[in-house]
């Protein structure tokens, strides 16, 4: 399923020489690019550098960019390739599947039913002031995820990519993508519960 890419209009403007269109495009992907790059390279300084190099490569290639493909997929593929080259980190730790369960086993009784059920926080999320705090906590929880989970959650849930786009950017299998997404999202939910949950 290919939806119209919201970046296309900005791409047309930046091709025409509009600096502000370029800045707007950078801004709309910057946080996610830093999150993904940081998960692959040893320092935030290197991550910033990789992001800048990626944008230069994007500008240089923009003439040949086909608008029927999505800019963000192309952008993140360049980013991941450059970050993998720049960082030795991931090559050393190949495919570390996180064996941890979605919810700590201690919260279930011997029959597998909840002994300590999920604490409530959904109402808080409707409150504007609390929602801001929850959003801040989500941001840092994603930053704390293991590298591969962070990549998948950032691309799927912040950037809004489809699973197909994520698989093509990270070059991983569908099952792997789903496992990483499941672990990452479960962990973020748990962090919110730990901080904002209360038993009823």
């Amino acid at each position, binding site marked *: 399923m290919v939806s119209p890419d919201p970046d296309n209009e900005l791409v047309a403007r930046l091709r025409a020489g509009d600096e502000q269109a*370029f*800045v707007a495009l950078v801004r*709309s992907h910057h946080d996610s690019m830093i999150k993904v790059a940081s998960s692959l390279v040893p320092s935030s300084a290197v991550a910033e550098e990789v992001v800048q190099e990626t944008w*230069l490569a994007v500008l240089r290639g923009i003439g040949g960019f086909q608008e029927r493909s999505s800019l963000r997929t192309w952008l993140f593929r360049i980013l991941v390739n450059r970050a993998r080259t720049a960082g030795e980190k991931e090559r050393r730790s190949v495919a570390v599947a996180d064996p941890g369960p979605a919810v700590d086993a201690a919260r279930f009784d011997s029959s597998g039913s909840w002994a300590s*059920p999920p604490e409530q926080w959904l109402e808080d999320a409707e409150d504007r002031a609390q929602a801001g705090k929850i*959003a801040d906590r989500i941001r840092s929880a994603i930053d704390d995820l293991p590298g591969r989970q962070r990549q998948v959650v950032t691309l799927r849930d*912040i950037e809004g990519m489809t699973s197909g786009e994520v698989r093509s950017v990270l070059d991983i299998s569908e099952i792997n993508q789903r496992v990483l997404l499941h672990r990452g999202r479960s962990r*973020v939910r748990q962090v919110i519960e730990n901080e904002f949950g209360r038993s009823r």
Partner: protein
Amino acid sequence: MMRLAARLRRDIVCQQAVELVSDYLEGALSRSARRRLEVHLAGCPHCGEYLAQMRKTIELTGSLTEADLTPQMQDEFIAIYRLWRAEPGP
């Protein structure tokens, strides 16, 4: 009796349900697994709450607003853009 026993064996428990929630939301469960999970969810308010929280987590993550670039970062990106504009065409 036999049929009930067989059905009970196939029933899922909460600890399994929380591991199926992501595949459920991704539409990646088989029909029978989906049905079993839905039966469980219909009878288990805690797992219903858990599913609602996962949905909300995804929604909140999707609506994180991007932090603004610092003026220094903006200048750096504008410099990259000008560098590119100044490059000779292909």
